[in-house]
């Protein structure tokens, strides 16, 4: 059953066409990721879905309601974490949770929430005294406080240290096991790959790929990838190597996709030895969503 249905969504900021005809559906109980570089239209899309921005064209339903016409029905059944977290600076973490809990008919226990986001020790600290990462985790806890059916998380892990990121992934997994739906945006490919059941890749306001991460990779690549620093690659005629299917060049790295890794790599090392070029900086890896994005846009997703 689809809990979020978006079809042909458009949003303009003046003359800027920020979202250009986005369509997708999110099923109950899945973790759905909207993946794309900064400025691709992720935040605009999420804010339009929850009714914070008015859409200019298209249809949106959340749990069967139109968020513009039936705002309260939607808002009371979802939890939202927005990118910018600014709260009453001189309230404590626990007071803030209690304040937000009062907006909903029922709420998750505060101890559990604090534990989920690792803020138990900071329960009585003022919000103004929190670090950036702690503030981010508090905002995630506020999304969960109302115990909604769908959680919207806008870049929940950006600015978090690796440990907090991993623990948030666990939290999201736990909520999925409870049957909650999670809609999140991210520009971390590894996060999308590990965390999301399905991803939509968005660029310049258009969805360029949609599906399970594994399927997306398989659809575009049966190959393995060899990354060679650009400076080294220039001296080598890698296109002529056996098994090479495609080359992808970006600012610093040449990525060689090969259908037959062992033959390509043996040939590459022979070639490198002849030219006297060390291969110490060469990386061999599986194809990832990063490659999918690179292939579809010719750019890497991260700045």
């Amino acid at each position, binding site marked *: 059953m689809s809990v979020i249905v978006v079809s042909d969504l458009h949003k303009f900021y003046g003359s800027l066409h920020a979202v250009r005809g986005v369509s997708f559906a999110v099923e109950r109980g899945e973790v759905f990721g909207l993946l794309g570089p900064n400025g691709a239209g992720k935040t605009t899309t999420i804010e339009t879905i929850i009714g*914070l921005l008015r859409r200019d064209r298209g249809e949106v339903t959340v749990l069967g309601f139109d968020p513009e016409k039936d705002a309260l029905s939607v808002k009371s059944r979802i939890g939202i974490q927005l990118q910018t977290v*600014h709260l*009453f600076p*001189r*309230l404590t973490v626990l007071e803030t949770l209690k*304040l937000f809990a*009062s*907006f909903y008919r029922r709420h998750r226990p505060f101890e559990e929430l604090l534990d989920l986001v690792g803020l138990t020790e900071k329960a009585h600290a003022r919000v103004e005294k929190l670090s950036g990462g702690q503030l981010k985790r508090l905002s995630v806890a506020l999304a969960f406080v109302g115990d909604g059916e769908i959680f919207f998380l806008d870049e929940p892990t950006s600015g978090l240290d690796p440990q907090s990121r991993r623990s948030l992934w666990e939290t999201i997994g736990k909520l999925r096991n409870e049957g909650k739906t999670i809609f999140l945006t991210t520009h971390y490919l590894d996060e999308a790959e590990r965390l999301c059941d399905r991803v939509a890749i968005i660029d310049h306001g258009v969805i360029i790929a949609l599906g399970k991460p594994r399927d997306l990779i398989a659809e575009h690549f049966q190959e393995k990838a060899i990354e060679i620093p650009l400076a080294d690659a220039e001296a080598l005629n890698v296109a002529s190597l056996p098994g090479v299917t495609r080359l992808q060049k970006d600012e610093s790295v040449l990525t060689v996709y090969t259908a037959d890794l062992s033959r390509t790599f043996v040939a590459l090392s022979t070639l490198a030895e002849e030219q006297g070029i060390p291969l110490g900086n060469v990386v061999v890896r599986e194809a990832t969503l990063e490659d999918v994005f690179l292939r579809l846009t010719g750019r890497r997703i991260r700045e």
Partner: protein
Amino acid sequence: MRVFFRFLGAHFKNTIRDRMALFWFLAFPILFVFLFGIIFGNAGGSWNLRVGVAIDSGLSFPAPESASGVTLFEGSREGELEALRKGQRDVVLALEGGTIVLFTTPREVEKAQVFAKMVENFLLKEELRFRGLSPSRGVEVRTLAMPRFRQIDYFLPGVLAMALMQVGLFGSLDFVELREKKVTRYLAAMPLRREIVLWSEITMRVGIALMQTAVVLFAGWAFFRVQFSGAYVALLLWVLLGSAVFVSLGYFLTSFARTVESASGLIQMVQFPMMFLSGIFFPPEVMPDSLRFVVRLFPLSYLGDALRAVAVNIPSQFGLTVDFFVLLFWLFGSFVLARRFFRWE
């Protein structure tokens, strides 16, 4: 309602945990009471003696220019006595059944007695002889039955009016901050009516105004024995009206500002002239004529006037009815404008 009270609590905690806000809203007025109280509290006011001469009682005062430190006013008996009640004269001179009577307030009795001797010995000898009165009958000093008030009595309600203005105007910066930091936008994504956020904040602000009232009056009583008239209900109503005026004015002014800094500048532009030109710290008589009309423009003048009347029984300068309608007009005007220009984001 549950959400309203949660927000009320949140606003309240957020404000009283801000040391700067506490200083400006509560400590600053007390400091003001203290400083001005020490400067003016027990001094006898100006040395200049303001003498009203009731010319309709058949008295003409000779040599008006001859005495330095004496300013003469001439007018009808009733008019001069009224001026005396308002504190615009120190002594009023009248002729009553062959006796020269000096009317004065309890506060100025000593001055009047000195002045009576002066009148008797030097200035009036000619006048008395001319009228065939016996100088030996002397000059009578009579005090008007009116409550005694000192400069600090005049000043204290002014500090209260100033404090109410501070909370009303500067308090609205909190909302600008919520707007600037997009808290209001964030709350728009929550299942609640946003109006609750605003009204709970306004309620909190009025609560602080009441706290200020208690604190200022207590400070006046504790440090300088300023006697509160005891008119609780009247005082409460005037305080509520006054703080409503300045809260609306604050929201109106800050709706034009994007950031806390610009809002703060905007408010200071309004607040400073009002503070010093509203006659809340000294009677408008001490101001040059050219500025007196300004006094009549500001709502703070009328609030101070009314608070003086209800809190410490100092006769109202404009009349309480005028005070009421002027404040009501300001409330209505700024409320309408605040609604018109209000922005959530």
